[in-house]
């Protein structure tokens, strides 16, 4: 390989196309976004430099507080539900015969492959107050006034979180299942020899060895929650007001509906900082569990 490496300029040809596009489409726009976030801008005329005013306005805006609260709630719910449910089901699938494993894997993973937009449309139909199946079931069970899932400001957030959690559980099942499949079989055999039952095997073997993967899933879940857009926007446009908005939706509405490109950039920078920070934090935290 040294022969190739010696002519280092020849090697560069390989990385230049990707690097150039990466610089133009990712690195430079991030720099631009940081600059725009410090300006007042309608997107067309020259931006007016404002310093940190956008950020101050943003953090003192009560709507922003609601959006952050929504994002936090969705993240916490996702973190509580997705890894636990996924772990249990991954373990159950793991203990099936191989062919069954493949079948269940496909079935469970299917919603994650489909466009978020179609899942959102689907749930819009399911949650429809008049003829959606959910309310139909409720009325047939005797419930008098089934809730307005998509227009009641108090529950609309949870109506939007539901498809988010639903769609991607299968994703984490597959990740955890792959992790379990890389475990050597002798662990289970020696556990059996020691007389362990299923529950013990789960808690004492599966959970510790998969700890790293579980942490990784949590990183992905948090990252996903920061960027969440489609479900909220397509089902309720983030409304009513900002009742079901997440950061991504709030950014879109501020920028393209409100015409405030500077503020929108500031919000997007906040999204980026949060996503990156949590990724780094969790990876560091996860190292403590390595054994």
């Amino acid at each position, binding site marked *: *390989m040294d*022969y190739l490496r010696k002519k280092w300029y020849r*090697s*560069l*040809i*390989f*990385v230049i*196309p*990707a*690097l150039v596009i*990466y610089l133009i*489409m*990712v690195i430079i726009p*991030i720099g*631009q*976004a940081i600059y725009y976030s410090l300006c007042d801008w309608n997107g067309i005329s020259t931006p007016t430099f404002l310093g940190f005013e956008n950020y101050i306005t943003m953090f003192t805006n009560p709507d922003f507080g609601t959006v952050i609260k929504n994002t936090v709630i969705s993240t916490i719910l996702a973190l509580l539900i997705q890894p636990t449910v996924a772990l249990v*089901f991954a373990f*159950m699938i*793991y*203990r099936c015969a191989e062919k069954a494993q*493949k079948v*269940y*894997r*496909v*079935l469970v993973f*299917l919603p994650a*492959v*489909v*466009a*978020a*937009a*179609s899942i959102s449309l*689907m749930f819009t*139909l399911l949650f429809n107050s008049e*003829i959606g*199946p959910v309310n139909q079931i409720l009325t047939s069970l005797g419930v008098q006034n089934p809730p307005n899932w998509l227009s009641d400001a108090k529950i609309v957030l949870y109506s939007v979180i539901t498809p988010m959690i639903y769609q991607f559980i299968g994703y984490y099942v597959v*990740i955890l299942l*792959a*992790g*379990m499949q*890389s475990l050597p079989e002798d662990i*289970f055999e020696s556990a059996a020899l020691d007389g*362990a*039952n*299923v529950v013990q095997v789960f808690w004492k073997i599966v959970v510790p060895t998969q700890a790293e*993967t579980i942490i*990784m*899933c949590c990183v992905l879940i948090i990252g996903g929650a*920061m960027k969440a*857009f*489609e479900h909220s926007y397509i089902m309720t446009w983030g409304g009513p007001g900002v009742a079901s908005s997440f950061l991504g939706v709030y950014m879109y509405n501020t*920028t*393209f509906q409100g015409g405030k*490109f500077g503020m929108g*950039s500031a919000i*997007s920078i906040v*999204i*980026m900082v949060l*996503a990156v920070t949590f*990724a780094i934090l969790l990876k560091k935290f996860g190292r403590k569990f390595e054994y």
Partner: protein
Amino acid sequence: MKGQIKSTSPAMQKAGTIAKYVVLSIWSIITLFPVVWVFMTAFKDNGQIFVNPFALPNPAVPSNLTEVFKAVNFGNTFLNSLIFSASTVVIILVITSMSGYYCAKLTRGMKMYSFLILGMMMPAQTILIPIFTTYVKVGMNNTRIGLILMYVGMNIAFGTFILTGFMKGVPDAVIESGVIDGASSLRAFFSLVIPMAKPGLATVGTFVFLNTWNDFLVAFIMATDVKLQTLNLACYQLRGVYSSDYGLLSAGCVVLMTPAIIIFIVFQEQVIKGLTAGAVKG
């Protein structure tokens, strides 16, 4: 059998096994219920839906599907989605196999690799505003090239990440023997390295295709021109016009979901490998 716990009695094991399959089957049904419901509803007219949303269509009404094809301008929008996804895949495969090769074989440090990987942590929203406004200024908004460039930019980090891993698995000896036989490094790359990295290429290709096909936000902002609309976008807009025709809306969902489902079933292994790479240790 993997994971077999041998310490319980055979009868308990049988009961446990049955219970396990029952629970998993119920779970699968719950997971698939919304999808199945939408498929069923797509074949009903509004009358049937109101009467009993859960019955099988009787009779099956195929007109929803045919109407939907027209309503979303299927020929055009399907083609657009296909063009965007396929072009992005081709470009990404070419340039990230090269960058992966560079990071894996042609350079000693990890600096370039780490730099390119950073993109994986960046949310699309952050680069969206600057790119959108730049595009508008230079007249690239609502152009195919503009969108494809955006999609490519969004996938470079991931492609490099996966393919560097695969390229590392190509033994140096293969490449060196090619060079000794007189191939230039570029020839060596294309005729020797690429065939050995095929699984990696399939993984990246499938993953990038699905991501681009399923994209909503980017197309929503940068493809407002009717000529450029993707299938995803068109299905979303059905709601505006046909908000009370649930059969039609369901048919729209069906049309949007089916290609992705087919691709997934065919390319299962690649999709799953792409999505678990880096998330699983060991």
